[in-house]
């Protein structure tokens, strides 16, 4: 029988792989999912820094061993903030799709030019300032 530690470590690895793969996709929704999934892995990873404990919640006065409460406290706020970030990114993705007409992360469909060339103008302005 494998140990819990082995299951947890490989589980973290599998979820991380999954999250990174989604993070590297070209569509904003996949990236949002990737961030969420990566968040799970990272939270569990931080939680695991307090080592694994069975039937030992960090509640005092019940006798017996007690799990390390500090990583738990850190992860608790991380979960909530992770949710807020997901909310922000998904709405950013929506806004981007509707302003650019594409849900590709680059803001335009692959193979088509940028929606506007404001950036190119800015570069040209800088060039004009170079002393001759």
């Amino acid at each position, binding site marked *: 029988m494998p140990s819990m530690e082995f299951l947890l470590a490989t*589980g973290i690895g599998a979820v991380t792989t999954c999250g990174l793969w989604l993070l590297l996709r070209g569509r904003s929704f996949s990236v949002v999912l990737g961030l969420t999934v990566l968040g799970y892995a990272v939270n569990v990873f931080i939680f695991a820094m307090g080592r694994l404990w069975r039937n030992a919640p960090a509640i005092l006065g019940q006798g017996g061993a007690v799990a390390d409460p500090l990583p738990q406290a850190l992860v608790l706020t991380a979960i909530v903030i992770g949710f807020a970030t997901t909310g922000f990114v998904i709405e950013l993705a929506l806004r981007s799709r*509707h302003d650019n007409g594409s849900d590709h992360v680059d803001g335009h469909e692959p193979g088509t030019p940028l929606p506007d060339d404001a950036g190119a103008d800015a570069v040209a302005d800088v060039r004009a300032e170079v002393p001759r």
Partner: protein
Amino acid sequence: MNPLATVVLLPLLAGTLGCAWAGRHPSPGRRRLTAWWAAGVAAAALALLLQQAPAVFAGQTLLWQAEWLPGIGLNLGWRLDGLALMFALLITVVGLLVILYAAYYLHDDDPAGKFYALLMLFMSAMLGIVLADNLLLLVVFWELTSVSSFLLVGYWGASPKGGAEARTGARMALTVTGGGGLVMLAGIVLLGQIAGTYELSQLLGRGEAVRAHALYPLALVLILVGCFTKSAQWPFHFWLPDAMAAPTPVSAYLHSATMVKAGIFLLMRLYPVLGGTALFEWIVAPVGLFTMAYAAYVAVFRHDLKGLLAYSTISHLGLIVFLIGLDTPLAEVAAVFHVLNHATFKAALFMTAGIIDHETGTRDMRKLAGLMKLMPWTATLAMVAAAAMAGVPLANGFLSKEMFFAEAVAGRSHFLFGLMVPVLATFGGICSVAYSLRFIHDVFFNGQPKGLPNPHPHEPPLFMKAPVILLVVLCLAVGVAPGITYGPMVQLAATTMLGHAPPAYHLALWHGLNLPLLMSAVALAGGVAFYMALQRRYNLHLHHPRGLTGRLLYTRLLDGLLRGARGLIGGLDTGSLQRHVAVLLSVAVAAAAWPFIAAGVGAGVGAGTGAPSAGTRTLLPADALSVLVWAGLLAVCVALVRGHRDRLQAVVLVGVIGLITALTFAALSAPDLALTQLSVEVVSTVLLLMGLALLPPTSPRESSAARCWRDGALALAGGAGMAWLSWLVLTRDHDSISWFFLDRSLPQGGGSNVVNVILVDFRGYDTFGEIAVLGIAALGVFALLDGWRVRRPVADAQGRPWRFARPPLMLRHAARLVLPLALVLSAYLFWRGHNLPGGGFIAGLVTAVALVLQSMALGQARAEALLRAAGGQRFVRWIGVGLGIAGLTGLGAFAFGQPFLTSAFGHPVLPLLGELPLASAALFDLGVYITVVGATLLTLSVLGAASRGGGAAPARGEGA
């Protein structure tokens, strides 16, 4: 306050701020006030200096120190000795004259406040350089002169005519002198490390130790680069002619009398430390001599009055540098003397050039001619000053040039160039006579003016000429009787510079018939002949200078740098976010892997001592259920990677992973985390589905095979690394700071749920920051999507409507039942949070879930109406109230004289309820609760409002 500090700070604070304030409106009265204010400040600084002068002349060195940043050796140390006094007087006196001159020079629409404020800033920086006792402090002021001169040269940078020229000149000056200053800083730091101090008062006595040090040559070269860039020595001289785009008073002040002398000042200042070695002589003297001869030659061929004067300045600076480099006491005396002489006549000449420009509208010698008849006074003054520049007897320039020739001849014996030195010196002398002659002949004689922009030039007002008259009279006075004019000052400064009294010398007009006099005569006759020959044989006016090597090199270098930077950016940044993320992740993976690889290599293959391996902690046996869940997780991961293009399926699979995460927490003694994760899971799934409704239901298959392989490899590497790292950690025992919290939680925090006590008490400050971040994220969402409406189809691709015709009966009834239950549950969770799993975060999320369910059942608009949330806008207030409660609870601790967020608790006994554990932390937790509810609901509400569509609000985009 110490008078020396006052001398520097007076122009810096009173001068800069006062002038900027006084000159903020462009009215004649204001302009006068600004000029008077600047003059007053400069005069006050001068008076303070003069007050100290007797002590210095008596041989004292005034020192004053205060700590600034003692950790790096940077102290506010001031020093007034002979050398500092000479330069400080030069700066303040010429500064006063320039202020007077500029009052008449500046045009009505030139902003006077800006001009005088910058001039004051510059004056303060210069005074800081010469009065600093601490070398690092000196560097600070050194860079301040670079910055203020950049601003002064670019004074007309915004004007349509000549603005581009001013900007280019300013930028070039800043790049060269600022860059040189940075190089010099390296040299100074090195010098400080060698000597063990940055204080000149200690450093000056450690010259021998410094010169014997192995790093001395490096420090010397670095410091010399700083001096040479500032003092426009070849090959860094090219910025000075371009800086002539500055207003003429600035040129007279910065580019003749003061700033370009800063490099020379530092050479003189550090002469007792750095001078006296063969290396010093071999670098400084040849550079100075070559600059002197080369720039004098170039000056003859310049058509612009100020361009001619700029090259002449470079040439004279070269002369001074050469004298310093000769490394003999008398040469140093001559160098000090020429600093004063050059400042006197060159400032006068620049002011004359400014008068001519002011009156005729041009500085081009090809257009100017015959002004003798129109401006006889100015012409006379210019002639005397030019005579001083050429080294004609009776003017001060003659004396120092004689000394220069004498040293050049004397230096021949110990200087390896042999005959080269007197020959080059005489050549430089010939050229300087020729350009001085050209300055006078081309402007004041040589026929009639040809096409002046202003056809009727006349004498300027007396007060514009007054500074020139003063300087020219001084030129003659010094030329006739040097011993009673500049003599004592030169003696004092040279003594300071050398560290001992110079050998007996005699400043006088007549030294008898000797070789230097012959050289002077040759230079005068040769110069006249050279100029006449050029006039006769070669039309000087048609000459077009070519091959400005330094400038060309500079522009090529700068262009190349910019091109290179652009190429580098273009190569790295293709505008593809996927590529960015891939690069970022690769770097992260490599950085995380590096210690393992290094440890493995360091320990040697197979040795196994340093290479990471699994630890010896007793592991927890896994039960069958855990293995089953684990297998399920792996299957979900595979399914997600393969099937993420179907987005609905992907959201479900992500939700499964979230649930497994919650189970993991529950199984591994983290009930608080399990509760949090579970409730977040509900809200975020709702959020993802709401987002998905406005996005395409599937992702296209578009990644190339190569990209898939790359991403796959990267993801696997990252995942494997995380797994390996987790394994390494989990198999080891640990020692945690948490035991501290476990010990103190009950006695000091008044709660037995340590996780919650950490959140609201021990690390309350962190939590406060985190709920603030939560609120900010929700507000960000609000800002992003507020008032934004999307048009979207009523039904999905299969024709199923997105919206219920009316809320389903079951859901409505369920929601009605769930809401009060959920609210009671969250109150319970909140209340017991301090002692049992629960708390503000979890209670807030449970409440939010119940309210979201209500929204789904009743429709968002109805639910929000019931909550009196004004279409979601009021949720912002909830966030504010929550943060306010949390913050005020924290501030409450101040009332008891405790630090922010110190908590108090008690166990009051109430009738009916019994003993109640009551902690002020509970109030803080209430703030957390309200913020969490507000932020969650705001995020969902804004998204819901955007997708409701149909409203009158502007719709952008074509919808999904």
